[in-house]
């Protein structure tokens, strides 16, 4: 069980039964599924969006879409993979919309009206904060598939087989993308980490 997603896992048969009820409009069944997977979806959304409110919006939208499209789930496939794929797509859509809005806001708002990025840094926190920011920027700049595999592996703490189901790629591809992501991050963060590239 993931450290960040402490909900109990449900068996495939139980999930399929719940989905059938959801299709029939069963509110309780829908709430049960939401309760089981809401944190996993939140972690993935937050990892992409890095904002709590945006992540919660993405969580709601993911489960609303699940309610509408429950009939499209194919029994036998990984439900978690299917749901996380939806969450990933919704979060990426949010991210793109937010980035566009942010760019527009930055180009139209006078500099003096923009809020300061951070308050005065405390002694000792500065280096750690710099590293964290550099790390976040480097993850952000990874190619999309590398970024998704890295996020799912390290933030969602998914196994490679779960990542392959969520991204509809082979396990070998998932491992390869993860390796490339780590290498790229290492290369980009070499000056900050004080290691040779």
């Amino acid at each position: 069980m993931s450290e960040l997603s402490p909900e109990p896992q449900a068996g495939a048969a139980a999930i399929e039964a719940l989905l059938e009820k959801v299709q029939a409009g069963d509110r309780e069944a829908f709430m049960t599924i939401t309760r089981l997977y809401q944190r996993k979806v939140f972690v993935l959304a937050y990892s992409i969006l890095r904002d709590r409110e945006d992540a919660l919006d993405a969580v709601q939208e993911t489960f609303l879409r699940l309610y509408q499209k429950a009939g499209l789930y194919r029994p036998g496939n990984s439900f978690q993979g299917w749901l996380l794929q939806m969450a990933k797509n919704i979060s990426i859509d949010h991210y793109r919309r937010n980035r566009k809005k942010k760019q527009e806001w930055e180009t139209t708002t006078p500099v003096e009206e923009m809020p300061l990025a951070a308050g005065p840094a405390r002694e000792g926190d500065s280096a750690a904060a710099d590293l964290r920011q550099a790390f976040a920027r480097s993850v952000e700049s990874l190619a999309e598939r590398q970024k998704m595999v890295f996020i799912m592996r390290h933030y969602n703490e998914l196994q490679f087989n779960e990542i392959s189901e969520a991204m509809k790629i082979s396990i070998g591809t998932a491992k390869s993308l993860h390796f490339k992501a780590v290498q790229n991050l290492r290369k980009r963060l070499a000056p900050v980490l004080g290691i040779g590239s």
Partner: protein
Amino acid sequence: MDEMRGMTPADRAEAEAVERLLGETAAVRDEIRRAAEAVDWQALPALIADRALAAEDGAAGRKAGAPVRLPWPAALRMRPALAGLAAGLIVGAAAMYLALKAPGPRPGRNEAYYASGEFLDRAELEMARRGAVDYLEKSQYVLLDVFGSDEAGPVAPASVRMSQARDLLQKKKYLNGQLERFQMAKAKALCDQIEMLFLELSQIDDELPAAELGRIRGFVEERQLLLKINLVKKELESGV
């Protein structure tokens, strides 16, 4: 640490770098944990369920005959493809209406073949006039040829005379319709008299005897055919 024992210094440095790098993910996980702690996970499923059911009720209401009435431009704004299609249909219909309504050549047709009904009538009248003038002129030549030599007999041989008469008889058949259609009564009456004469000439296949020649000449002179031909030709040429 045990794993690093057999490594070269370079490999060890690399492994440490990656470890330190991945250690940063712990900081992000802490950030996610803090963000998650502020969420009311107990209330969220009910909130989402309410929204899902409300959305479904709204959709069902619309399906059940309670359409959301939007002013049509707003509806089109919401559906760019539909708006584009509708605009295309309107513009296309307007263009087709204007093209079919306007006088003149139709789009897609070869303009070289276009002519109005009035123009065609005028052209046919002109052709009938020219046809009649041509017929009269040729008839005049034949008559002059036949009667050009006084007592010495016709200049042209019998075979040529017969052939010319038959050609003109043939032509007269086509001319009849045009003369009648455009009510060219004077020209038609003259052409009819000449036709009778040529009919007679075409049936005489040997050289004209002097008596026969005299009789036909008398007919021509009596009717003043050559004079009439000149007058009618001038009338036709002047367009009266």
